[in-house]
């Protein structure tokens, strides 16, 4: 840290840092129900839009009553306190909210940003795809959705298919990518047109995460080229993907139109599964 005491801004930031550390120490001693939650939601996330879609509780521990905590946003606190350890010049440059600067993602180390996004992808994956006894309600949508995960899964699937193809590799990638990306958009539009209530990007995010089992299946099929094995693997992963997407899609529409909303999801996954089997 620089010893530039003449800048009042820095001084207040430093005192706020001390304040936070004191509060943390207090909270460790005084047990639950205190100011700082163990893992508050990411401050970078824009505020959750209010819509008629069901509001979901994440699986984070419940936030304490907000009256006791600060009015500004709370910084994320991974196990070691971030500010001293991040140790870069950027952390003291934020003057906006006096209570401990929110990490400036432009100047934090790249590894921190990547790690945060990766951990969000993993946690979203666990919420959506894996049987999770802590999941509040499978029909409720992701609270902390992002688009990195889906993007990664779609590109990965396209690359795997392209790699397994022996001819016309780039066309295979193009068709797979277009099918998945356009398919997700069309499926979301389909639900909206049928009078369902979902948030556009949240639905894209969910459909992208549900591709994870098919990614796994595609990798297995790429490694072992036996037709029977491929069919078995693809059927299992297809069922898994559909199971993951089912609660969300069916909760979004009127029950009389549930099949109309679900059939296209099933169609898309079946066609991708077929592509996986057929590419050799």
């Amino acid at each position, binding site marked *: 840290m620089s010893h530039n005491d003449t800048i009042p801004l820095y001084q207040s930031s430093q005192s706020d840092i001390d304040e936070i550390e004191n509060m943390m120490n207090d909270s460790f001693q005084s047990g639950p129900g205190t100011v700082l939650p163990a893992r508050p939601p990411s401050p970078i996330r824009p505020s959750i839009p209010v*819509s008629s879609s069901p509001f979901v509780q994440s699986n984070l521990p419940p936030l304490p009553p907000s009256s006791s905590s600060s009015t500004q946003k709370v910084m994320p606190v991974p196990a070691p306190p971030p500010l001293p350890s991040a140790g870069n010049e950027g952390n003291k440059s934020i003057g906006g909210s006096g209570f401990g600067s929110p990490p400036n993602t432009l100047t934090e180390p790249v590894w921190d940003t990547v790690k945060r996004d990766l951990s969000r992808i993993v946690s979203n994956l666990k919420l959506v795809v894996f049987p999770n006894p802590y999941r509040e309600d499978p029909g409720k949508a992701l609270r902390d959705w992002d688009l990195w995960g889906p993007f990664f899964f779609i590109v990965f699937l396209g690359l795997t298919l392209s790699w397994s193809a022996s001819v016309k590799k780039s066309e295979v990638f193009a068709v797979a990518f277009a099918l998945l990306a356009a398919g997700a958009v069309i499926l979301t539009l389909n639900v909206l047109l049928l009078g369902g209530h979902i948030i556009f990007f949240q639905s894209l995010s969910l459909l992208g995460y549900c591709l994870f089992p098919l990614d796994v299946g595609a990798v297995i099929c790429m490694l072992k080229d036996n037709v029977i094995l491929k069919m078995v693997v693809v059927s299992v992963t297809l069922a898994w993907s559909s199971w993951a997407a089912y609660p969300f899609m069916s909760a979004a529409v009127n029950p009389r139109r549930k099949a109309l909303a679900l059939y296209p999801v099933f169609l898309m996954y079946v066609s991708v599964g*077929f592509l996986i089997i057929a*590419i050799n």
Partner: protein
Amino acid sequence: ADDTFSRPVNGTTDEPQSSGWLHRFTVGAYKPYFDVDTSDVVERLKESLFPFRGTFTEKTANNPDLYGPFWICTTLIFVAASIGTFVTYIAHKLKKQEWNYDINLVTWSAGVFYGYVTIVPLALYVVLKYFSAPSGLVQLFCLYGYSLFVFIPALCLSVVPLEIFRWVIAGLAGFMSATFVALNLKAHINSAGERWFLIVVSIFLLQLALSVVLKLYLFTVTV
């Protein structure tokens, strides 16, 4: 996140169309065409399998939907591509030949089906307007879309490797779907004057041509 698409469009509290032509690009503009329940769609599908009743247009006059046509076409693309691939795969394996997946089947069948269901009703709409027997455009899309439903079981049955059987199936499916379209348009066409026969025949032939093209492209295996 974007709130634009999730704003529910309520019929009673209709906001005035803010800008005439931009309204076409919102989701709300097309919601009335998707106002069907599962039972409605199933019933319309069943109607399309009985071409000689001719009651389809009456039933869908008030509530033509675009859900059926779009998803029937999409399903057809998938079914056509997969059956076509499967047929060539079997043929190559039986003769112990090398086989490679042809991705162009997917793109080709997408072009054929979407193109057919978009362009032919549009052309028919223009023709009918010219002959002063106008039919709603969405009704025409609906009619043509559902008429393609019979091709799904037909394609599935064409897996059987008997050439003559495939031709019979193709002919039958083409005939059924062509009759479906022609009979349902009959009321409209009759009022078009002397040319009605010409229109009916051309519709019929077009649908048959589609069926033949499908059979030739998907099921002609050169090993």
